[in-house]
């Protein structure tokens, strides 16, 4: 199927892009050869992986979590794998060693 491309007359003048943040339509997950996986049991909710991710693809959620040892957290960090490029910064920076980089299998 060929996509219907807009003609030049229907494009905004000056190549103005009118949709802020629209790169979300472009998923970058297929750049990834390694996949970061967060171990929620080990994670101490320090926020560092969220802070340093170049893609902003680690999501901070107000989602409670209780570890098997009974430790209660109000926040949870989850990875949106649509954009993760697998750089490994999160795993490198995690002070609790809660993130493992595993081989990506598609």
């Amino acid at each position: 199927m060929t996509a219907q491309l807009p003609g030049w007359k229907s494009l905004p003048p000056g190549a103005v892009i009118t949709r802020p943040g629209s790169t979300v339509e472009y998923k970058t997950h297929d750049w990834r050869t390694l996949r970061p996986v967060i171990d929620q049991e080990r994670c101490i909710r320090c926020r560092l992986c969220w802070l340093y991710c170049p893609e902003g693809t680690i999501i901070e959620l107000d989602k409670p979590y209780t570890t098997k040892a009974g430790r209660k957290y109000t926040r949870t960090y989850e990875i949106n794998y649509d954009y993760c490029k697998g750089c490994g910064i999160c795993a490198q920076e995690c002070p609790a060693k809660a993130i493992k980089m595993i081989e990506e299998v598609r």
Partner: protein
Amino acid sequence: MSTKPKIPTIWDIPREELFAPGHRMCQGCGAAILMRHITKALGKDAIIVEATGCVEVTTTVYPQTAWKHPWLHIAFENAAAGASGVEAAIKALKRKGVIPKDKKVKVVAIGGDGGTFDIGLQALSGMLERGHNVLYIVYDNEAYMNTGIQRSGATPYKAWTTTTPVGKVWRGEWRPKKDIMGIVLAHRVPYAATVNPAYITDLYMKVRKAVEIEGPTFIHAFSPCTPGWRIDPALTVTVARLAVQTGVWINYEVENGEFRVTTPVSRRKPVRDYLKLQGRFRHLTEEEIAEIQRMVDEEVERINRLVGKTVIGPVVK
């Protein structure tokens, strides 16, 4: 007089993202980390004017954009001139009553080191000299990365680039890095600071300050580049942190002439620790590393003299 805002903690950084994913910056790009947190610190009332370079070409692949701010593409050499024009237009529109007089909008120019240290230097100097209410941010990845790692005035001594190759005669870049902060400060601007992506709360505080202060302000941001520096993408933040821990990079700010180091380092690590993680320095001999160590020692001494006490300590192995 210097304003002493509350030093932010990691929990003060807003959760909301103003810089969208799906951009095409390389895996582990330092500039991507910078842009995420710069946009958070700017808040919504800012207009960004961007010189071409990596950040521009990777974030605005038509018909999409990663930016949520009003954002203007400008040629390689004139982000500062474009930003000056936008700021003047805002003034005129306020005068004509089109925009409310009390509406605060900061114009922010962003350029790479090539676009700032080299080809955009005249536009930058003009902007600073005329006193526009513009914040200029240079993300310094120490070469022309977008076009294939050509050296710039910001390339450090002995670094390999495609135009300062390593062979029998050439040993990488043979000129020292240009002192852009010195050039900016010679314009007597009210605020100028250096920031580093490993130290986000420091960056956040400085961008907030630079937005609040009226007049031309300047931020020089350290920006590790994975292909250009030949580093493991996982080590971007590690390399950035080591730059500070070795004294290769010093986080400081100059507010109305008052100089302050914001990340003191009591015991420095040897520069070797920083250099050895980067392929662009792989060719260095022991003597060459010792020479770079001496250059860093001299700069640290100069900074300590400026502050009037030892804020960056000696190398401890």
